[in-house]
């Protein structure tokens, strides 16, 4: 166990007053693994990261790095390095001095220190910026220096605290690619906190979806997307339509009791349920023919989203939206058939 994990959280718990910020979280990160904590704001992902870095104190549980307990140590005695959202560069130090700082604190002597500074700046492609001050750098460059500063000390685990969220979209995509490239090259172990799903999906070996201080599911990105463990994960990851239906005997109605033209292959449980389907999996009109599940609905309005047209449909009190590449030639107000495969649908009670 000791050799096989870079970081291990065991039943970690942290409360702020009566609020449980991190609730019984267990997670193991293998060496070279890139694990993302993904969740809405307030889900406890940043608190979890701060617990690992040592900026918050544990209420219960254990944190181990390479098998050794570190949760009693102050941040400056832990073999972690954090890349903060704001970069948090030392404003009065040059780029080279910023990168040198952690090495000096770890008593890395001169020739090696210079070599490692050069390497780190090479890696983030900031050669020639050694003597600049942070105020002379752009937002993206600052984050690259922060990355170099953390990489240079070669920590057991890198902690990313939403490092890209303050940047604009194109820069975010570019840096995202760069972090991924670096991880592929250097094989560092990392925990990455974000609320951006595409970031999590694109970069991670595994994603841990967090909600209300708990981990809802930990798995590879594909599994998280295609095989969500529960309702929260399904609704949080990707887009989904929710059909609120009521079933009594063989009658299926909306929540107001109005009959709807819904036909399902498998019968629903008695009472209220929630049906979830991804809008990209809904087939319309002729394409809906022959699919095991179907609904007849009225076109409420149509949005043009570029690659697809999004059809907003209504059947009783039910509202669904379906994405279709290109227009289908039906107008607002027309009745239309919607169909989907059983494996694309989830039913929760």
């Amino acid at each position: 166990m000791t050799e096989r994990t870079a970081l291990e959280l065991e039943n970690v718990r942290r409360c702020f007053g009566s609020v449980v910020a991190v609730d019984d979280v267990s997670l193991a990160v293998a060496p070279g693994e890139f694990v993302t904590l993904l969740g809405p704001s307030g889900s406890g992902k940043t608190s979890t990261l701060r617990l690992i870095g040592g900026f918050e104190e544990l209420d219960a549980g254990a944190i181990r790095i390479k098998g050794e307990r570190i949760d009693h140590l102050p941040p400056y005695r832990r073999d972690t390095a954090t890349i903060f959202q704001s970069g948090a560069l030392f404003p009065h130090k040059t780029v080279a001095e910023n990168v040198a700082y952690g090495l000096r604190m770890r008593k890395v002597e001169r020739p090696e220190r210079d070599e490692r500074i050069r390497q780190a700046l090479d890696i983030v492609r900031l050669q020639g910026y050694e003597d600049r001050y942070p105020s002379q750098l752009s937002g993206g460059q600052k984050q690259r220096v922060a990355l170099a500063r953390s990489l240079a000390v070669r920590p057991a685990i890198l902690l990313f605290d939403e490092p890209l969220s303050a940047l604009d979209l194109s820069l975010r995509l570019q840096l995202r690619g760069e972090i991924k490239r670096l991880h592929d090259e250097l094989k560092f172990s990392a925990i990455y906190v974000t609320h951006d799903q595409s970031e999590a999906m694109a970069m991670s070996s595994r994603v841990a979806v967090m909600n209300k201080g708990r981990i809802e599911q930990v798995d590879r990105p594909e599994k998280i997307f295609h095989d969500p463990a529960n309702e929260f994960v399904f609704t949080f990851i990707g887009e989904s339509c929710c059909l609120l239906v009521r079933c009594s005997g063989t009658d299926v109605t909306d929540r107001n009791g109005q009959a709807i033209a819904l036909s399902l292959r498998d019968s629903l449980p008695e009472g209220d349920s929630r049906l979830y389907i991804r809008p990209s999996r809904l087939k319309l009109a002729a394409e809906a023919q022959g699919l095991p599940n179907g609904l007849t609905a009225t076109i409420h309005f149509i949005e043009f989203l570029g690659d697809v047209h999004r059809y907003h449909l209504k059947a009783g009190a039910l509202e669904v939206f379906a994405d279709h590449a290109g227009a289908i030639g039906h107008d607002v107000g027309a009745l239309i058939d919607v169909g989907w495969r059983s494996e694309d649908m989830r039913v929760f009670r």
Partner: protein
Amino acid sequence: MSDALARRGFEPVMLKALGAAFMVFIIAYILIPVLVTLVMSFNDASMIRFPINAWSLKWYQDFFASPQWTDALKSSVIIATGTAILSTVSGILAAWAFERFPIPFKNVLYLLIMLPLFMPGVVLGLGIAMTFGGVQIAGVSIYGSRALVMIAHSLWAMPLVFMLMEATFRTVDYRVVEASYDLGANPLRTFIEIVVPMVSTGVISSALFAFVISLNEFVMALFLTDRDTQTLPVLMWLSLRSAGTPRLAVASVILALTVFACLALILVWYVRQLRKVSRN
């Protein structure tokens, strides 16, 4: 319509003119006494009195040739330096603790720290003089020593340093401090290498303010010094009563120049920092 327009044009002009006049008045009010003193210090006569019939530097020569006056100047500078060090170090540490740690009864404590600033110098001076009047440590009398005056002056200087630094520390981006811990620097190292440089303008300003406060202070120094340790303002006061020569004006000019130099230093440092922050 045009009437209203005209009035709207007239009012700002009026306001500007009044504003300018007020500024001139204030500047004159502050500068005239200083200028009069400056002019008087070049008087050749042996009395502080107008009109000035002949100009000379003789009283400057006289000032620097007199051991009594140069000793007083030396005393003033030593005491001011000591006060600056004492109150800057203690004030900064107190302010950092105040800003960083949860301290019970913070508001009460804040008032307590600021309290000496509002105490009359006479009360503090007399109180300290009575307390330490006969106290000796290892055969050395505390009363009349420069150290005692430094401590007394720190009663006024420290709260000012504390107030200034408390406000300055609030502007520190705490993530940067965390980044320093994160990279392996312990709290002391972080404070010296990261926090203090980030607030250097505040540190320099408060040190120089403390220096100036001590340099200017008269009442406590009058109560607490003896012939060997008296400061320049004390000596000026004593000699005014015996002989009002232009030597007094020279002493004033030197005191005023020192204060101006300190203010200039603060400004220079401030501009330098501003430039550093907005280097691009």
